[in-house]
């Protein structure tokens, strides 16, 4: 067992636990977004930050200043002093929630999360709303639980998004199990049956159609319009209808 101090309480936890697990075992509430108990710690959303002061290592008398660390990924160490609701922690969580809301301001789930931390409206709004908060839960669940790895996070920075390999319209490795959809905190991902094929869609997708000519189950309306009439009279007539509209 490891002894540490959380919010002025001395607590004992089993070896190998994270701070978040220790807090939850002892009934201390810590907000999370990218964390899931069945997945490995990721430390990306920064909502679970707590103030950590580590005891100085042996032979080093300099006191270590308190710093913010993600509780979900920080291993419990003997002698740690942790504060889960200090002013600094709360300011940090509020800013993080506000920044989440800056992009996902249309998501009721993120609005509720922000409100629970005392944030009503973001001071900065991204030009386009996006319900994906890049928490990576879907990607990690697909890889770690399902063992498929049909989707991953691609690109970087603000362009980072959930995508099948090489930005293909459909994840060819997807088995349609729906774990990603279930775990997605904002409803950004959906499964849809198109012409008898179940495939994964994101909030940003265009509607996909089934081409009877080639069997491609995932054509965009524009792609459908390009199908030559001789190959697929059905597709061509669908495309014509599209154009007529």
């Amino acid at each position, binding site marked *: 067992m490891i002894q540490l101090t959380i919010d002025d309480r001395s607590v004992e936890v089993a070896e190998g636990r994270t701070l978040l697990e220790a807090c939850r075992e002892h009934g201390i509430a810590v907000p999370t977004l990218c964390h899931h108990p069945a997945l490995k710690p990721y430390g990306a959303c920064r909502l679970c930050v707590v103030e950590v002061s580590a005891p100085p290592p042996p032979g080093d008398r300099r006191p270590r200043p308190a710093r913010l660390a993600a509780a979900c990924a920080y291993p419990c160490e003997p002698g740690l002093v942790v504060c889960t609701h200090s002013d600094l922690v709360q300011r*940090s969580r509020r800013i993080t929630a506000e920044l989440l809301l800056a992009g996902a301001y249309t998501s009721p789930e993120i609005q509720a999360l922000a409100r629970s931390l005392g944030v009503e409206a973001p001071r900065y709004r991204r030009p386009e709303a996006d319900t994906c908060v890049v928490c990576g839960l879907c990607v990690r669940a697909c890889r770690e639980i399902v063992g498929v790895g049909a989707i991953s996070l691609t690109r970087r*920075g603000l362009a980072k998004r959930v995508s099948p390999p090489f930005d293909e319209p459909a994840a060819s490795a997807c088995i349609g199990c729906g774990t990603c959809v279930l775990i997605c905190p904002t409803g950004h991902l959906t499964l849809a049956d198109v012409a008898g094929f179940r495939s994964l869609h994101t909030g940003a997708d265009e509607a996909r159609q089934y081409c009877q000519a080639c069997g491609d189950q995932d054509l965009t309306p524009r792609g459908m319009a390009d199908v030559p009439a001789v190959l697929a009279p059905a597709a061509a007539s669908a495309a014509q209808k599209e154009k007529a509209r």
Partner: protein
Amino acid sequence: MLKTPPSPLEAAPAPANGRDPQLHQLADLADWRAALTAADQPNQPAITVCGGTGCRVYGSERVCQALQRELAARGDGRPVRVTGCHGFCERGPLVVLHPQRLMYTRVKPEDAAEIAAATVDGGRVLDRLLYTEPQSGARLPYETEVPFYKHQHRLVLDLNGTLDPLSLADYVAAGGYAALAKALALTPAAVIAEVKASGLRGRGGAGFPTGQKWDLCRRQPGDVKYVICNADEGDPGAYMDRSIMEGNPHRVLEGMLIGAYAIGARRGFVYIRNEYPLAVKHLRAAIAQAEARGLLGENILGSGFDFRVSVRLGSGAFVCGEETALMASIEGRVGEPRPRPPYPAEAGLWGKPTNINNVKSWAAVPLILANGADWYAQLGTPTSKGTLIFSVVGKINNTGLVEVPLGISLRRLIFDIGGGIPGGKAFKAAQIGGPSGGCIPAEHLDTSIDYESLTALGAIVGSGGLVVADEDTCMVDFARYFMQFTQEESCGKCVPCRVGTQAMLATLERICAGHGQPGDVDYLLELGEMIKRSSLCGLGQTAPNPVLSTLRYFRAEYDAHILHKRCPAKVCKGLITYAIQPERCSGCQVCLRNCPAGAIHGAKQQIHTIDPAVCTRCGLCQSVCKFDAVTVN
């Protein structure tokens, strides 16, 4: 899989010189060095041509070929070598005649014939190619007299101007790998004690004591350990690591060998960005030579110590300079940082204890071992020992690569070595530490450059990029530039960095465009502090520094933009207008013809006017006007 064809720069290195012997034991190395130095007279004439990337762009390779042709035509046997970066990039291409160290600047291939005829044959100095001191107008023939070099303390860069980077023999003759031989005769613990005693701190930016870091890694259980050289230098305007690897790759390898021996690692990686083709080529050549001679491989110099080094190429992500992202990239995963602990010393590459140091740290290690910890610790301040390498760029006369002892004042660095600000303009600020660093204003010019002093001022030593701003630089725009860089380079994993940097950038852009609002400064301060404290890795934790430090020292400029809708430096396009002064305008129509927006009107011999609604504020009219008639307000 598609295979990229090898570029000419990456082609296999030339086969090692047939004379180079196999080195089976310590004595073989010493014998070889003795043979090399006996064959070479110490003061033998030679000519070196700077082969740093800057000088190469200016055509230094053609200069070298022209000199070789001229000397060959004369039957003169002195060697003409392309070396690594000499540092004085502002005056390149540089040609130095040894042993006098006579330095010619801005040499063109056409000058080769005259150099050969006058200086090589006649012993005459060519005045027109000498360095001219801007203030006094004095022409200084010798490298050692030039203030740019005179005030420096070149330890790590000492051989950059003399060695052929592709020659192991050159490095060995200059004392190379003697430090390795010395280390192999010591116990690993004694090597670490020596590095600890030297006071060397990590030159990648964070300044963690190197010896302590090695010790932490050495004490970890397990017999598989790794050492990594972080050569993913990506700060705008920084090229210190690049120049060391281009000019003296063996010194980096020797440092890694010593570190690996001390830590107990048998495998090393150099993670280097692919945008440095010359550094990659030289490093690969150095590894091949060291392997061929037995300096890398099994039972090195008969010591029983095995070590191999592989090169891994970065693919252009700034964040991969962060150690955990770098290791993920080496492992073949997405270059994203992960939370620490565990630290690399506990669980690094493939979960094994790993020691990562910057190129400059590794390159300092052989010097410490060869000359002793006390020798190294003589330089610097009580807490920051040794030398630092800066790439000094921006609004400064002597752009280049400088090495100075820690503790030197910023004033000496910028005015004595850097030669001050061009055009007689006033110094405004120096951005130290690149996009992670902060700016230091004129009132702190006398601050000592060391880890503690710079941190107290809101800047960091960082990796050594130093960008100088003069009175014409708008500090809001300056901060905006660095914010844009970090925003673009954020990996996007954690929320504060991904969205927070974008929120700060959008606010700065709004301020620069003239749409600043009274609460903006407070918002930037609040957001900046929280991004620093909440972000996952060093990139986010330092990204707000340029904004926070400009807010600290140049708050008035922010207020001028926001409250008075005025850009004091007349840079921000949304806040300036160009106008033609009627009393100066000659009606020559030069501005009118050059204006890409068609915003200037006026017949020949008539006073011209600029239509502010059409004007794009490109400033071309001002730069082409011969009568200084275009002014900015």
